[in-house]
């Protein structure tokens, strides 16, 4: 079978490789192929648990065209369901809201508990008769999507075939094991959304390398120079960058955020930024963290959902706002880059590009992962034919 793209050059070693072909950024057919191979077939970031802070909170999310429902059930467990009634396939929840009791389908009023159980099938056996021997409610609960929460990110494995989360994410969980501490979302002033006209992978790629910092983030570079950064490359798992000169934010009144407990002294001045494949970008510092969940809305549109976290539930509001603003400036500075690279990929003679053998390892690491997963998926498809 002829494949949509030739990935052989991508799998070459860093110094010889080309980047992913244009089609991986602009072609709807490749986007669909990657949806199965990279997002539905892996543990992908969907949202954060802080999006549904209280029992009964429900938030519908369209993920790769699939209607999902993020919900905190009555027992405080965060769950993800397909947002589709088991009767006629109607969308159940249209906008974020509190579920007081059951989820009632607006079409024929079939009702589901927040745990996904089908609890009412009104008139299913005729007017006023709410049962029928052929309708077994026990088999008609909401379709639950496999999910796991780590670092407050709600990760989903839509096809249900990925290894257990702790197994799949073992390398990155081990790297940051000492940061397994309670995280407290900063609240309404500590989240923002950026919509970019770019394929989601370009946001991953730009985030994981430090090569661009002096050119795109001159303000950052005034104290965190290129030579103070190091590459992080864990082939098959994640990549990113670290800095050796992190400086804590200080408020006008001299206030600083509290540190996470019991960190190694190296974190006094170090910080790391990881692209956790496929679509979650994490930042970790001695006194705060952030998570960026990339939600693709098409081959050339991505929503970046940014959330900031702290070591303590209470933090200085002024300092928190200052920190949010500081990161917002940095992430906004990246928009012209990811959108420019996206437009550049409509140049039909672009060959995926070549990498700096020294500076672009983290990006190559991601391309290698993408190519590997797509090739695996193609092999499965071929075997099935």
């Amino acid at each position: 079978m002829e494949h949509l793209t030739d990935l052989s050059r991508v799998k070459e070693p860093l110094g010889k490789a080309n980047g992913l072909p244009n089609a991986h950024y602009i072609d709807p057919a490749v986007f669909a192929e990657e949806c199965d191979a990279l997002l539905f077939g892996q543990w992908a970031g969907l949202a954060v648990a802080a999006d549904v802070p209280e029992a009964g909170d429900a938030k519908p999310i369209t993920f790769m065209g699939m209607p999902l429902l993020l919900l905190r059930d009555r027992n405080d467990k965060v769950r993800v369901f397909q947002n589709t009634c088991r009767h006629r396939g109607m969308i159940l929840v249209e906008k974020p809201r509190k579920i007081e009791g059951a989820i009632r389908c607006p079409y024929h009023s079939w009702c589901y508990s927040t745990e996904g159980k089908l609890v009412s099938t009104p008139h299913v056996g005729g007017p006023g008769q709410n049962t029928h021997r052929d309708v077994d409610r026990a088999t008609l609960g909401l379709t639950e999507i496999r999910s796991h929460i780590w670092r407050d990110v709600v990760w989903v494995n839509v096809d249900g075939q990925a290894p257990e989360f702790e197994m799949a994410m073992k390398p990155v969980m081990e790297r940051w094991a000492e940061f397994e501490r309670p995280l407290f979302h900063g609240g309404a002033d500590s989240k923002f959304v950026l919509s970019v006209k770019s394929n989601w992978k370009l946001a991953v790629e730009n985030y994981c390398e430090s090569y661009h910092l002096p050119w795109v983030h001159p303000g950052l570079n005034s104290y965190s120079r290129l030579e103070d950064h190091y590459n992080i490359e864990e082939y098959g798992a994640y990549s990113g960058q670290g800095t050796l000169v992190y400086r804590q934010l200080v408020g006008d009144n001299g206030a600083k955020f509290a540190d996470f407990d019991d960190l190694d002294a190296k974190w006094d001045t170090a910080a790391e930024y990881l692209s956790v494949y496929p679509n979650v970008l994490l930042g970790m510092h001695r006194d705060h963290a952030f998570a960026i969940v990339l939600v693709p809305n098409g081959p050339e549109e991505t929503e970046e959902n940014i959330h900031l976290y702290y070591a303590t539930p209470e933090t200085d509001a002024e300092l928190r706002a200052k920190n949010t603003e500081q990161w917002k400036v940095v992430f906004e500075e990246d928009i012209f880059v990811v959108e420019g690279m996206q437009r550049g990929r409509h140049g039909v003679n672009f060959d995926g590009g070549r990498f700096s053998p020294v500076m672009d390892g983290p990006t190559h690491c991601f391309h290698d992962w993408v190519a590997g997963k797509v090739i695996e998926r193609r092999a499965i498809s071929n075997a099935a034919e």
Partner: protein
Amino acid sequence: MTLSDQDLLNAHEEGDTARLCTLYHQAALTSDHIHAACFYATHAYVFALECDHPLRPEIRAFLVQHGREE
């Protein structure tokens, strides 16, 4: 009491599920025929489920008693 179309429409318009529950419950209680009563009780039960209304166990028991609910 009979079910007032206007009350019902108002409650639907306002998305007032607690009110819908009590309106349909009252209609069930005052129905002359068991089929009509179960029809109204079915609606009352659905809205009771939706808003976690305190009448929910009572309405469910009524429907179960008449073989209309599990």
